[in-house]
């Protein structure tokens, strides 16, 4: 097989005004020799949304924390070939310079709101502080922006809620407060780690519309981490699928949904509960991800893949082209060619 190793930056759409580009990001912890994130590359353009989906524990959050300069190192070991955010390499910035970017040009919505909200300050103080820290405005203006933003994320009685402490809010309200904090300074890049998991679908729809509106008016690039394939289908332009720290498939959203290639992607799509009447058990991919110490030398999905053979266990497959902008890391793609039908 002639497998041209397509680089992901080619796969993830052309360089139309790139906001963030990363090549060869790897992350490990402590003394363990295994990289929990292994050679990950991607690119997000102005006004575009790139979704990252993948198995729980596959490295989505640590990837985004590393890009935000928020992964303490040590214990983390972070290596990369290159990275560009608005013309600079964020991964080589010092702590101070990073702190200036964060919350201003790049902002993050964290997976667990309680870990990023400070329990001893009111939500008003926290949002206002974020504006004052980065923008040249007075307190009254900062407060006005905070109220306006809280109202835009559909917090009822925004004025009054400025004085609320995080523990007085419901799970979804905390998530929305964090979204307000991330959006209030109109960042160039928004990393959203499961931004709407704690939200019911009506508020989710409003928040997604708000993010799209912001993208249209200010050109914010969005890196969206979610396991809700419905949200991916509705909002993402491009998708990367990760498994055990590696990108296994990437491409335009239509290609991934209509022509999924990697066995993990296929299993994932099959696990989606249909909205129709209940029909027996949900399909799931048998087994679990092995602990990193037992990752196979070859394809990391080999231990659970029904199609895996000796080569899959022994040799790491390269990323190969599966269609325009669509790439897959599997020795057996497309599956039909390798199997008797």
């Amino acid at each position, binding site marked *: 097989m002639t497998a041209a190793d397509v680089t992901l930056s080619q796969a993830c759409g052309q360089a139309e005004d790139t906001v963030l580009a990363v090549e060869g990001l790897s992350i490990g*912890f402590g003394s363990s020799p295994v990289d929990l994130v292994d050679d990950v590359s991607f690119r997000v353009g102005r006004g575009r949304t790139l979704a990252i*989906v993948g*198995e*729980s*524990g596959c490295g989505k959050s640590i990837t985004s924390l590393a890009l935000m300069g928020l992964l303490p190192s040590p214990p983390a070991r972070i290596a990369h070939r290159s990275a560009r955010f608005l013309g600079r390499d964020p991964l080589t910035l010092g702590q101070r310079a990073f702190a200036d970017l964060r919350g201003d040009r790049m902002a993050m919505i964290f997976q*667990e709101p*309680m*870990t990023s909200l400070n329990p001893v300050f*009111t939500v008003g103080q926290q949002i206002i502080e974020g504006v004052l820290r980065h923008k040249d405005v007075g307190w009254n203006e900062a407060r006005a922006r905070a109220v306006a933003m809280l109202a835009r994320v559909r917090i*009822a*009685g925004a004025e*009054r809620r400025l*004085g609320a402490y995080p523990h*007085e809010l*419901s*799970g*979804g*309200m905390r998530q929305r407060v964090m979204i307000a904090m991330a959006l209030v300074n109109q960042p160039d890049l928004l990393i959203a*780690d*499961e931004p709407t998991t*704690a939200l*019911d*679908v*009506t*508020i*989710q*729809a*409003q928040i997604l*519309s708000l993010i799209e509106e912001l993208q249209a008016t200010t050109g914010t690039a969005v890196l969206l981490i979610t*396991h809700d394939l*419905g949200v*991916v*289908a*509705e909002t993402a332009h491009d998708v990367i699928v990760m498994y055990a720290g590696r990108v296994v498939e990437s491409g335009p*959203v239509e290609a*991934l*949904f*209509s*022509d*999924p290639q990697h*066995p993990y992607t*296929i299993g*994932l*799509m*099959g*696990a*989606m*509960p*249909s*909205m129709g009447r*209940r029909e027996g*058990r949900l*399909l*799931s991919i048998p087994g*679990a991800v092995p*602990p990193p*110490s037992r990752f196979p030398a070859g394809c990391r999905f080999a231990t659970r893949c*029904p199609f895996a053979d000796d080569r899959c266990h022994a040799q790491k497959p390269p990323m190969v082209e599966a269609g325009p902008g669509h790439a897959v890391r599997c020795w057996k793609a497309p*599956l039909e060619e390798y*199997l008797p039908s």
Partner: protein
Amino acid sequence: MTPLSRPIIETVGLEKHFHLPAGPFRPAATLRAVDGIDLAVREGETLALVGESGCGKSTLGRMLVGLLDPSGGDVVYRGRNLAAFTRPELRSLRRELQIIFQDPFSSLNPRMLVSDIVGEPLWLHEGLGRRARGERVAELLSLVGLSPEHGERYPHEFSGGQRQRIGIARALACGPKVIVGDEPVSALDISVQAQIVNLLEDLKERLGLTLIVVAHGLGVIRHMSDRVAVMYLGEIVEMAETDALFDSPLHPYSRALLAANPRAVAGDRRPRRLLEGEVPSPTAPPSGCRFHTRCPHAQAICAESRPRLAPAGTAPRQVACHFWAEIAEGEVAHLPSPVRPPALTRRLALFSESSNAHLRHEE
């Protein structure tokens, strides 16, 4: 589930009002988080609570398992008022009534090893020896798709979904009778989600567990619950068998909720159906029907008189709306189910065939 099984938990006029003291930005006020809920949870069923963020689901769930005291009304467990239990009785009740918390991280003690977090209830309630406890913990961890060696790590070393599974393992530790799962699978990718949902269903079969799930993922709800209670601003506005609700939601809020569900169809950029209007504040809920400020069908009476949760039609179904019958006669808000793309269907078939062959081979 048998439809006639007796209620295991009942609530009567259940309320939780929080008193908000005056602060720098605000005068004192009362927040009606849960406001008059009558509910009967049947033994062995799976009851789903759905509703807008902030409508009181977690607060209700915590009162159901006795973790939060009501400010009004009662919770009755197996015919006995929770308020009448003594402290030691309450403690032993804890093992029967378990909760999986919504925010996995803040509910796990950061200084404890995961094996101790999962094993703690065993030690508190069962007095198991060290060895037996270790085995049980390993078994619980693998039930939720983690490996025993994960036990020797601290919560911060886990991903969001892994932490959620630690919470689930802990809740399952000492044979609960009722589990309130507050977004129990929200942080999991759909394949692990499917595994956990299947696991909970197996446990229900085997142990006769009663499940109360709070969830936003409507696909999961449709799949796993027998009945659904739809909440809005501290009240139940509709209560129905799952299929009946999904096939024909009666309350205007239920209809808006189902219409907003994203469909997994790539490039489906139809304009979202947004629920219009300001979310009212639970410190000053609207008069009459609380949904009238955002309801497309509202009429004058809706602002004046509060509709009661009452039987709707012949089915065992209740709705709190003055005009549900008229609305139901109008248009049906149905979305066609998405069609699976042919390439996916083909490869999924290969996937299942090979998985089965693979399993047979291993046996």
